[in-house]
């Protein structure tokens, strides 16, 4: 099976090369049959990659530890769900997933555009195959998922999946991110095709817009799933740490956000062509750059690889992409001139442009600060470490401006706003925003944190503006159809999915940022060492450590704590948190010690999530008092083992194993482990806790969900009649461009 996998991977590479050559040849010679053959090469690549991926999945499910990647990231005890998802927990599997997703999305876009974009598509095919070929090369020659070990060296059990990755959101997070990254390559490829052919109208944008939106949606979901994993699994109580790898995903997401907004200006008014092409190139390049950051280990991150040899090829790819794109944009600068200019700063197009500039400024800040350790090392010879303090002075005000523009943009008129227009649209949202701010100042302590207070006010303004737009649209529809309010609302959204999906996403952004501002500004956090019966106060809540817990199960031993939380003497919730210790793959820590190795531990947080606040806790098991028993157990069982081995020296390995088992060695060992575990609950050992009370964290997740719903609505194809109307508008626009 390993040989078959390796052969398919090589074939993948061959198909990529073939497709690139015939696509370019077909485009240059205007030979449609070669162009079609290039497109079919993409379909073939998708089919081959799916087969390769299926082979890898089968290897995981069959516990085929002759595959190095299976032995490294799975074991006989790994649950089936995690076996299925373990392939992308390794470098090798991730690269194969990249190729597979890239080929599948490329096939979809080329199938949908097979009768359109005839000049652009062949070049786009070549670019898409070039990118897929790059990752296929890495999978072939850098980190091959089908690398096998000789039977004599094949382990019997496997190392197992890292406990930290056994989390549902973590297992969906990578495919979402990769889908986002690979989808981002599609508008990039078509933009390059448009630049090569000079077909720089709106057609390529129309045909790839949905893919850009898909990239935005998938990448966004991936980022939020990663944040959720961090919040519930990593045991530090935060959801965003400005870690380089988090930033690597955020940068292309912000850039594609700018793109899906600014293309509306090009579609409506034929403006910002250079800007849009630049945005999509930067978004695509940043997607590759993000992958480079994760894969190369060039920056210190909680995520990045310890070391890797994949950095150089990535730098080469990035250089080719950027330099080639810049050369193409310069070559086509005359054709990329806007049809119109911005008439007034008080216009929708100006607001969209400003919003775009803010998003790009955010990307620039994140890029600079993320790479600053490398930049500083190049300048001063010493890496300078910067963290959140370097991000927040810039990102917070920029985010505020962004929220303001997000509220203003959809309400202001195209071309030039009049005083009447401003009055009609802004009185209610501005009034509502001010009212909320005032209420917060008078009724809460929000004024202590001015930035958070301003953000609450701006988000209220944004929510009111969206509500007003939806209300007015629904009322207008109801007046025309005399339907019920709910029916009119559904019909309104159904017929204008792109517009109202966008509004819903804006609503989600406001809800999410309220959660971010509240939880980051008004969080109470405390480290405390407590014995059972002791209490500590955090943010008005009293955390009372009731008693320790210890559970020895087949997969792990969990040492935990039960915490009672009260407020004003009233019971609020009971939290249960523990630290699970998974048995080490080898017994280098001793026959007993291998069950208590902190290197194989993960935390299960105690969380009481509510609409207004989260109460969060984590406890670090204190195994120091057990150390003596563990050491004694190690010594006893080592002696017992040696005696049994000496007694059975004349037997074969299998006979020896059977004898040791019959002699009750393993049963005795398990009883000893259980006994040590039971000790834990009998003594009042002090435990280190991290206790957090955070307001409105649930708003963050709810906001993200609303954004995703808005994105899905925008992405969903419009009803046929509406589609026909919109195509008619495009045809008219195309005709104007051609004349």
């Amino acid at each position, binding site marked *: 099976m390993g040989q078959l996998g390796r052969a398919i991977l090589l074939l993948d590479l061959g198909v990529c090369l073939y497709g690139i050559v015939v696509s370019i040849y077909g485009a240059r010679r205007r030979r449609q049959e070669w162009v079609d053959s290039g497109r079919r090469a993409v379909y073939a690549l998708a089919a081959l990659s799916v087969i390769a991926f299926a082979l890898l999945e089968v290897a995981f499910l069959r516990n085929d530890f002759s595959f190095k990647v299976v032995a490294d990231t799975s074991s006989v005890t790994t649950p089936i769900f995690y076996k299925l998802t373990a392939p992308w927990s390794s470098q090798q599997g991730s690269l194969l997933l990249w190729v597979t997703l890239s080929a599948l999305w490329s096939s979809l876009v080329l199938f949908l555009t097979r009768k359109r974009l005839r000049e652009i598509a062949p070049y786009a095919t070549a670019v898409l195959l070039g990118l897929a070929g790059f990752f296929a090369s890495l999978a072939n020659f850098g980190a091959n998922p089908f690398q096998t070990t000789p039977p004599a060296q094949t382990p019997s059990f496997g190392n197992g999946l890292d406990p930290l990755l056994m989390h549902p959101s973590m297992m969906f997070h990578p495919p979402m991110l990769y889908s986002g990254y690979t989808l981002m390559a599609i508008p990039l490829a078509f933009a390059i095709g448009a630049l090569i052919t000079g077909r720089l109208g709106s057609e390529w944008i129309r045909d790839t817009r949905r893919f850009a939106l898909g990239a935005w949606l998938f990448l966004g979901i991936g980022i939020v799933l990663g944040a959720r994993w961090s919040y519930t699994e990593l*045991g*530090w109580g935060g959801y965003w740490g400005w870690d380089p790898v988090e930033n690597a995903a955020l940068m292309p997401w912000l850039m594609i956000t700018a793109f899906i907004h600014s293309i509306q200006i090009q579609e409506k008014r034929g403006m910002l062509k250079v800007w849009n092409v630049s945005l999509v190139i930067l978004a695509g390049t940043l997607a590759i750059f993000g992958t480079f950051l994760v894969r190369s280990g060039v920056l210190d991150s909680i995520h990045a690889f310890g070391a890797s*040899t994949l950095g150089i090829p990535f730098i080469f790819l990035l250089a080719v992409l950027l330099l080639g794109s810049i050369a193409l944009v310069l070559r086509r600068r005359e054709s990329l001139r806007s049809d119109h200019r911005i008439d007034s700063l008080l216009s929708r197009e100006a607001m969209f442009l400003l919003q775009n500039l803010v998003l790009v400024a955010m990307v620039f800040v994140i890029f600079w600060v993320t790479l600053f350790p490398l930049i500083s090392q190049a300048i001063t010879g010493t890496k*300078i470490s910067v963290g959140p303090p370097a991000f927040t002075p810039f990102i917070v005000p920029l985010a505020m401006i962004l929220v303001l523009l997000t509220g203003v943009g959809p309400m202001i008129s195209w071309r030039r706003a009049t005083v009447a227009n401003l009055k009609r649209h802004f009185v209610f949202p501005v009034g509502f925003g001010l009212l909320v701010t005032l209420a917060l100042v008078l009724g809460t302590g929000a004024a202590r944190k001015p930035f958070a207070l301003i953000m609450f006010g701006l988000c209220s303004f944004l929510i009111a503006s969206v509500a007003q737009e939806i209300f007015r649209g629904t009322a207008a529809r109801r007046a025309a159809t005399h339907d019920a309010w709910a029916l009119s609302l559904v019909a309104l959204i159904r017929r204008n999915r792109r517009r109202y999906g966008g509004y819903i996403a804006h609503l989600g952004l406001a809800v999410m940022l309220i959660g971010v501002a509240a939880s980051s500004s008004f969080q109470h956090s405390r480290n405390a060492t407590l014995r059972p019966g002791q209490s500590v106060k955090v943010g008005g809540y009293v955390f009372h450590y009731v008693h320790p817990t210890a559970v020895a199960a087949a997969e792990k031993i969990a040492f935990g704590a039960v915490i009672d939380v009260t407020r004003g003497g009233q019971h609020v919730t009971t939290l249960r948190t523990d630290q699970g210790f998974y048995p080490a793959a080898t017994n280098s820590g001793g026959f007993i010690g291998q069950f208590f190795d902190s290197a194989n531990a993960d935390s299960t947080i105690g969380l009481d999530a509510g609409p207004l606040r989260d109460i969060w806790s984590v406890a670090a098991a204190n195994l120091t008092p057990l150390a003596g028993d563990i050491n004694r157990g190690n010594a006893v069982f080592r002696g017992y083992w040696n005696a049994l081995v000496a007694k059975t020296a004349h037997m074969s390995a299998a006979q020896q194993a059977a004898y040791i088992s019959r002699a009750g060695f393993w049963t005795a060992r398990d009883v000893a482990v259980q006994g040590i575990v039971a000790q834990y609950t009998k003594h009042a050992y002090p435990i280190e806790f991290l206790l957090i009370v955070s307001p409105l964290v649930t708003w963050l997740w709810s906001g993200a969900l609303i954004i995703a719903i808005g994105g899905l609505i925008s992405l969903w194809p419009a009803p046929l009649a509406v589609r026909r109307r919109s195509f008619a508008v495009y045809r008219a626009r195309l005709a104007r461009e051609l004349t």
Partner: protein
Amino acid sequence: MDPNRKRAIRLAVALSAAVLLAGALVYVSFSAGRDELTAKQLLNRAHPGGQYVLAGTVVRGSVRHDGATTYFSVYDPGSAVEVAVAYTGIVPDPFAPGRAVMVNVTDTRGRFIGQENSLTTKCPSKYQVAAGATA
């Protein structure tokens, strides 16, 4: 106003804003940052009371827990120099011998005390060490 002049003014304002942003960014980066030192650099530069960011790999066999305090040593794969750290606080789950870590430390008369909640560790598995790496 002449549209060309108007455009020139807009461009000047936009460029000035960009230059200001870039200047502020450079200033904040240097002022908010702290030197990220290897074990060898730390031992050369440290003085009592000084606070530093120590980056390196956790020495295998050096990790010891004593109540709420975790003792471990960090070394730079490029040299044999080690620095012992006493860290109090919740240890991140990915922390383990052989993995790369960063921790803020204070020099307390030759002993390096890790600041609470400042320990970060590179992720494992998906992020496993590539073949041939020293960690």
